[in-house]
């Protein structure tokens, strides 16, 4: 495997309802990532985007996002109908060919215009799940109940995860929710979809994230402290929620093992725990103990720009290394309902 590092990254703010179009708020994010990488736009050998046309309700909506990249003269580019973290994975694979030395990955989405419960129901089995209107919150609530019944989490633990995450976001300029009442106060709130309360859910967010990748020589030449990708892997579990153990995340455990998470101690973990109880699941699946700082950015409970939120975990983990002095960081991204598919990326400063 060729050594590849993250040499530049940028995020937009996370908006509850962005007035700008997706290409409009992508443009400054991509420009900033390129500028921070200290490279020229024309030097990028491959570009990969992650977005979801279902969010905007238009087929080929992703094509207009290329306005923010600049596609003339013609560029080599690709798109995944997934979180930008999977766009980064494709860019990393592309760099393994060895014929180019720079790649750009980005993810973007506007969650605010549509009915998210109905939009995300469409990603499910069209014969047995979508006709029931099965929505992400109800499915996550089934998972939380299974964990509560098993005794692996309590409602207080969940409230504490929410409070800690949102308070951690106080210094994160990209976050949307940057404060929280304490767990006692949160537990006074009524159930939304029991056993989940409002604080167990992420905010509805619009936003974008971009990351620049470089091969070894180029990374050393352009970046003072690159964040080296030492392992990256993604795994998927059965689609039907009743055909896997919802109280474990086997695919995360497999991805973490193949990415080499437990080869050395971890300083920081940025986990795509979109619902409070999932943080506990992910920690256990990756074997992260209490010495690991989890989601110092606040994570998805503080800002959830769908299709960018996973890539933002990788960008935050890279930032912890390049600017925060961390030696080793783990980033996680997820796709599908109840953590069906999981990507794990291990970053190191040396």
């Amino acid at each position, binding site marked *: 495997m060729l050594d590849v590092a993250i040499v530049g990254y940028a995020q937009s703010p996370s908006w509850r309802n962005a007035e700008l179009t997706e290409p409009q708020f992508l443009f400054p994010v991509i420009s900033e990532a390129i500028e921070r990488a200290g490279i020229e736009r024309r030097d990028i050998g491959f570009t990969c985007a992650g977005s979801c046309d279902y969010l905007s309700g238009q087929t080929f909506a992703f094509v207009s996002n290329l306005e923010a990249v600049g596609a003339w003269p013609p560029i080599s580019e690709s798109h995944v109908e997934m979180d930008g973290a999977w766009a980064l994975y494709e860019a990393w694979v592309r760099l393994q060919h060895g014929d180019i030395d720079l790649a750009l990955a980005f993810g973007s989405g506007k969650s605010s215009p549509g009915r998210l419960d*109905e939009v995300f129901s469409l990603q499910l089995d069209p014969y*047995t799940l979508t*006709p*029931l*209107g099965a929505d992400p919150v*109800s*499915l996550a*609530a*089934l998972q939380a109940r299974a964990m509560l019944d098993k005794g692996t989490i309590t409602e207080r633990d969940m409230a504490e995860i929410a409070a800690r995450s949102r308070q951690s976001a106080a210094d994160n300029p990209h976050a949307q929710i940057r404060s929280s009442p304490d767990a006692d106060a949160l537990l006074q709130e009524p159930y939304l979809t029991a056993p989940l309360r409002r604080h167990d859910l992420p905010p509805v967010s619009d936003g974008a994230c971009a990351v620049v990748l470089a091969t070894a020589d180029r990374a050393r030449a352009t970046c003072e402290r690159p964040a080296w990708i030492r392992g990256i892997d993604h795994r998927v579990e059965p689609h039907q929620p*009743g055909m896997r153990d919802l109280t474990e995340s086997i695919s995360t455990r497999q991805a973490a093992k193949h990415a080499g998470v437990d080869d050395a101690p971890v300083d920081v973990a940025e986990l795509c725990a979109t619902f409070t109880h999932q943080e506990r699941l992910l920690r256990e699946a990756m074997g992260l103990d209490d010495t690991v700082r989890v989601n110092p950015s606040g994570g998805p409970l503080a800002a959830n720009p769908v299709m960018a939120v996973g890539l933002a975990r990788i960008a935050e983990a890279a930032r912890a290394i390049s600017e925060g002095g961390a030696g080793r960081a783990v980033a996680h991204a997820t796709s599908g309902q109840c953590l069906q598919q999981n990507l794990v990326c291990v970053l190191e400063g040396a």
Partner: protein
Amino acid sequence: MECVLLRPVPEPPRTTHTIEFPYTRTLGPVIGPFLTGLRDQRILGARTPNGGVLVPPLEWDPATGEAIEPDLVEVGPGGTVETWAWVTQPSRKHPLDHPFAFALIRLDGASTGLLHAVDAGSMDQMRTGMRVTARWKDERIGHMTDVVFVPEAAA
């Protein structure tokens, strides 16, 4: 300087588009019989090579990815709630228009949980491990919502 004349704009024209997919399709050897079974008040599962029964039935084994020869067996109509979520405010896409539970239901004879709705009346009627049974619609069309589940005590 260019002069722009502002005039009242007439009512914009309106056009109605009806989008259709004017074709029929078959749902295949597994989902087809499963949905037809619902029309006929029968719930079918697929027997896997290792002796499990998948509900809903699949054409492949999720544990191994191997193709399964369709071997459909009837399960239910009773079953046990494995986990549940109480939906306080149903959406227009949900199968019931009043508060209900989504649940994973292990139907009698099945080895997996089926996602479906339980019409329990109120949240305090729900608990993990409770018994539920199928309640069929009078008019069935071979669709997931031909059935909902109710507490066995209320059936």
